């Protein structure tokens, strides 16, 4: 202590030597701890201010004591005008009662800007308990929690205080005039920190902080609850806290990627952003999006990592659902292409057919002319044959088209294709209040088939069935059955509609009983089924309605 006083004296060469009394001694003890300290006499006149404190205030000792106006102490000039009255009132009260002085206020720094400080003062009493003087210190609250430093008297989290001091939106960094008016008073740093803590704890996100090397040092309440454990709980695993945490919470399939990204960010300071699965307290892995960025000091050195983690499981689900719907939609488009195909087939057949009819009329005219023009009639007949041949070519081209696509055959389970077809029509069925019953033997393995084409057939037959029941009033059920018969699978689509009037004609191209449609659906369906080695026909359904049946070859079981 004496050596400390001596050092202090030597620092004060040329200055008035402070009296060697108790308050000054006390101030010097404090000086050893915090750097800045002060001592006053019993009425609050400064006796001693440590060099660091003087530098901090930016004014000499005598000015601190000189009245700036109407008998008010000179230290008014270093306290923020809005804080002065409260601080001065507290100081006056302490001087009268002798109670501990502790006030937070903004103080003018030598740099010309205000910063939050905590001023504390303690009375020194003589043997008669009379206050003989005061000593105290000014703690710079804006910088008190430099890395590695313990907070002076605060049990709240140092990593959050760091954030308070550095985050652009924390109140401490906002100019006093611009701070939001929270209630009646401008916040002190403590209040602002509490406010920030509340903010962090109530954000619908999982927040964490980590040291520059990645060691986790703070987790928000939500994150602790989400994980079901806290910082120290992974410390006994014989790994670093970071590795222990990652191994415990990251999905094994994502672990390598997460670690790679982490180490890259930690070594480069680059922001971290990754989607991965995180193990929740209940053992369920959920998709989260984690983002972290480095907080740097003035020199650009990373002092802390702050991270946020959002549970995106529902979004991921929604996205999966969306892709499923889109996939269904594209299948629906393939099914819809039956209609388009019909139209283009109709056009392709119509063109040569038009020519045939024109030539036929012309031929008739040449023959009926007076005298008959046999030569032109002969030529025209040749054209008729040509045009009719080109119409037949259209049909062969369409057949070839179906043949080519059989390369894409696979061995999907038939049940899956039926269910997909049902899903495609579910909307129409529910709109028409039609129930779709599906029953079938499980595990029906067909010889490899073109799933898209067979689905087209099913959708076509099922849609016909729904359409047939559109005007029925009750008992609207579409029944789809699939079962094994003699090495074939037999698929039935039965409706309770009006039934079929022309069971022979309905498979002919362009035959239709509907207002809409080209009458090609059943013709194409039959062509598809036959190209798969099956048959498609129509039957009467009991007690009423129509039943369309098609067969497809089953895969032969290997001989034992």
């Amino acid at each position, binding site marked *: 202590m004496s050596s400390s006083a001596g050092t202090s004296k030597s620092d004060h060469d040329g200055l008035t030597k402070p009296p060697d009394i108790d308050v000054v001694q006390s101030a010097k003890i404090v000086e050893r701890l915090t750097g800045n300290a002060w001592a006053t006499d019993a009425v609050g006149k400064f006796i001693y201010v440590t060099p660091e404190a003087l530098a901090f205030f930016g004014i000499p000792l005598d000015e601190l004591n000189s009245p700036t106006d109407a008998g008010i102490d000179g230290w008014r000039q270093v306290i923020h005008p809005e804080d002065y009255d409260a601080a001065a009132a507290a100081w006056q009260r302490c001087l009268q009662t002798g109670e501990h002085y502790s006030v937070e206020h903004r103080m003018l720094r030598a740099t010309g800007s205000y910063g939050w400080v905590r001023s504390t003062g303690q009375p020194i009493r003589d043997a008669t308990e009379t206050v003989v003087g005061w000593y105290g210190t000014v703690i710079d609250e804006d910088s008190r929690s430099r890395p590695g430093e313990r907070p002076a008297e605060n049990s709240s989290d140092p990593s959050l205080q760091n954030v308070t001091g550095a985050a652009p939106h924390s109140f401490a960094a906002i100019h006093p005039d611009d701070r939001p008016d929270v209630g009646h008073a401008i916040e002190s740093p403590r209040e602002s920190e509490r406010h920030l803590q509340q903010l962090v704890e109530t954000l619908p996100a999982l927040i964490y902080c980590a040291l520059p090397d990645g060691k986790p040092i703070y987790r928000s309440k939500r994150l602790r609850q989400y994980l079901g454990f806290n910082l120290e709980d992974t410390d006994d695993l014989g790994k670093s806290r970071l590795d222990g945490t990652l191994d415990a919470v990251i999905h094994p399939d994502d672990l390598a990627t997460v670690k790679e990204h982490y180490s890259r960010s930690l070594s480069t300071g680059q922001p971290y952003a990754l989607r991965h699965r995180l193990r929740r307290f209940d053992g369920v892995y959920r998709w989260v999006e984690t983002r972290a960025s480095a907080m740097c000091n003035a020199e650009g050195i990373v002092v802390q990592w702050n991270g946020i983690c959002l549970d995106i499981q529902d979004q991921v689900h929604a996205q999966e659902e969306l892709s499923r719907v889109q996939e269904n939609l594209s299948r629906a488009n393939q099914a819809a292409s039956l209609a388009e195909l019909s139209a283009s087939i109709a056009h392709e057949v119509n063109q040569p057919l*038009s020519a045939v009819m024109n030539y036929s009329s012309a031929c008739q005219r040449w023959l009926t002319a007076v005298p008959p023009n046999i030569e032109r009639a002969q030529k025209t007949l040749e054209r008729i044959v040509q045009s009719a041949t080109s119409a037949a070519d259209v049909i062969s081209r369409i057949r070839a088209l179906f043949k080519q696509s059989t390369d894409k055959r696979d061995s999907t389970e038939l049940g899956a294709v039926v269910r997909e077809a049902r899903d495609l029509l579910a909307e129409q069925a529910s709109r028409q209040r039609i129930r779709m019953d599906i029953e079938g033997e499980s595990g029906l393995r067909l010889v490899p088939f073109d799933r898209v084409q067979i689905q087209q057939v099913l959708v076509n037959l099922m849609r016909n069935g729904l359409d047939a029941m559109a005007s029925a009033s009750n008992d609207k059920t579409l029944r789809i059955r699939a079962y094994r018969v003699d090495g074939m699978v037999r698929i039935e689509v039965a409706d309770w509609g009006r039934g079929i009037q022309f069971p022979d004609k309905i498979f002919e191209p362009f035959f239709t009983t509907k207002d809409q449609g080209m009458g090609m659906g059943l013709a194409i369906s039959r062509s598809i089924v036959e190209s798969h080695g099956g048959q498609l026909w129509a039957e009467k359904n009991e007690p009423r309605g129509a039943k369309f049946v098609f067969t497809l070859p089953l895969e032969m079981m290997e001989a034992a």
Partner: protein
Amino acid sequence: MGTPVVAIVDDDPRVLASLDELLESAGYATISFASAEALLAHGLEGVDILITDIGMQGADGFELRDRVWRKYPELPVFLITGRHEITDQSHSCGKGGFLRKPFDGHALLAALRGALDDKQA
């Protein structure tokens, strides 16, 4: 009046040739074009009737009819379509009419005859 001249526009050469044959067998003189633009480039001087397909690359049959009628509002124009719905919904307000493919050649010739008779009347 000499031999009536019929202009035919269709982008399908098979249909074009068959129409040409049909009209020739009925005693008409024909000029054939594979597109609306080709006909417009050639001009309609001396043409008594126009028969055009509706669905064509470039200007379609409706557009051709409208452009022709600006200069020859009295010219009978027959539109041929392969699509049912067009003939159902759209009725000609000028001279001419619609024919749906495939059509009866005799019906076409009768329609042409009627249009020419109206013109002369």
